């Protein structure tokens, strides 16, 4: 459960990214976060994994106030809330398998677990045959799926996707979304930030629209506009 209570975020350079945002996203929800560039979507995501703290107001994940989280508990938050980054953030000198395994290694999973979970997850995103490739040899869509696999491999309770279809052709984008829908069906909360109106209109899920740092619309079973 994600709760934002009257959250305002102003960056040190004076840019106001979010103002007075109130929001609740229950467990197992699938919601789109839409809005033009600079509307505050990325800031919203940074707040969820405590890459940033709100200037005022509070962010709760499963009842935990993130501003009160101790520094050493931040890693646990980030294992619970996985992010698929817009720029993927893959390590070029590691293979697909290693990039995904990495997320498990940092949380101290055993090698046996890694050997079991990574192939399973690569299978889920359809990359089982490319496990030994390096990211630079993959297409954008494939890199995207590696990033998704890395986010999924730890079975997070919340998955946040930041423009995951931004660089993909329509077919690949549709596949990615189908994948996330499946993951959602398995019980993971999904927050999907996107500009892609077609996707949003097709899926008819909850839509939270941001504009100028404010929520201008929050509708269930909605379209993009």
């Amino acid at each position, binding site marked *: 459960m994600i709760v934002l209570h009257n959250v305002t975020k102003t960056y040190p350079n004076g840019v106001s990214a979010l103002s007075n945002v109130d929001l609740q996203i229950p467990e197992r929800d699938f919601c789109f976060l839409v809005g033009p560039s600079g509307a505050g979507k990325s800031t919203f995501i940074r707040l969820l994994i405590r890459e940033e703290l709100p200037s005022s107001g509070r962010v709760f994940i499963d009842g935990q106030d993130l501003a009160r989280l101790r520094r050493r508990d931040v890693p646990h938050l980030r294992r619970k809330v996985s992010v698929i980054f817009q720029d993927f953030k893959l390590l070029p000198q590691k293979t697909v398998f290693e990039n995904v395994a990495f997320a498990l290694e*940092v949380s101290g999973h*055993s090698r046996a677990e890694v050997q079991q979970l990574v192939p399973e997850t690569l299978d889920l995103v359809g990359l089982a045959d490319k496990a030994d490739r390096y990211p630079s040899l993959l297409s954008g869509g494939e890199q995207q799926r590696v990033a998704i696999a890395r986010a999924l491999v730890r079975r997070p309770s919340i998955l946040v996707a930041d423009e995951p279809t931004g660089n993909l052709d329509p077919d690949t984008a549709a596949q990615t979304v189908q994948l996330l829908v499946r993951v959602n069906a398995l019980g993971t909360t999904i927050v999907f930030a996107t500009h892609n109106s077609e996707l949003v209109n097709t899926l008819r899920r909850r839509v939270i629209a941001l504009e100028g740092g404010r929520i201008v619309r929050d509708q269930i079973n909605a379209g993009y506009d």
Partner: protein
Amino acid sequence: MVRTLSRVAEVVRYAVASAAVNFWRHRAMSLAAVFAAAVMMLMLNGFVIVVSNLNVALGALEQKVNVIAYLKDDAPPAEIAKLQDRLRANPLVADVTFLSKDDAMARLKQQLADRRDLLEMVTGNPLPASVEVRLKDANRIADLAAQLRRETVVEDVTLQQDVVDNLLRITNFARAAGIVMVASLVGITLFVIVNTIRLAVYARRQEIEIMKLVGATDWFIRWPFVLEGVLCGLLGALLTSALVGAAYEPMQLQFLSLVQFLPVNLEPDFPLRLAGLTAAVGVAIGAAGSYISVRRFLDV
């Protein structure tokens, strides 16, 4: 429990592998760090050896330090007894020996046993009775002498201070010079290690950022770099101990022949303890250097 252990084992395996890879990838810088650490610790070793030897010598000399208070011939025995009691109660004093006029004469006769001709020239007993006082701390010899001079039964006081004074001066100087030298070398070594590790950290800053974002703990990220620093420090320590081990015996002999009059005698396990100290300093400085380098990159 087993699960926790296997996790720890996983983290250790990961950290050791990364540290070795980093060390090798930047081997020129790593070697520079190893040598800087070795030079620093050679100085440290030399300093510890010199000061330890001086301390042993000083301790041996202090054992012998006496203040001798010569007593007036007309001093009443009761007063002399009281003086001895007061001295025994004095916190500066380790030991008090009374030497009567007869004892003094007997000692003189013994010392001059092969010069009977000289003894024959002595008529009566011109030697004064004396109280010989051994101190607990050679530094306080002047204080005690001053106290003794104020005693009514005391005629004169002689000190055996010069040798001790000189040795004390040398030891204190060696200690101060050594501390300044070692401190500056620690600074330089730390600087070299910090920069070596920073290179490794910088090369992997992207990886560190991603590790943070996917939920790695600070220590998980830090361990490989700390181990790399420890490896530099430890290799430096090994190099140092090897050199010192090879040079220790000949130098010890040299030193002994130089200061024959001093009873220099360190415990037999001294070289071993010195190697232990060196290794500990190497590990500490390597770990500290790495910790400092990584800190800046962990704020994600």
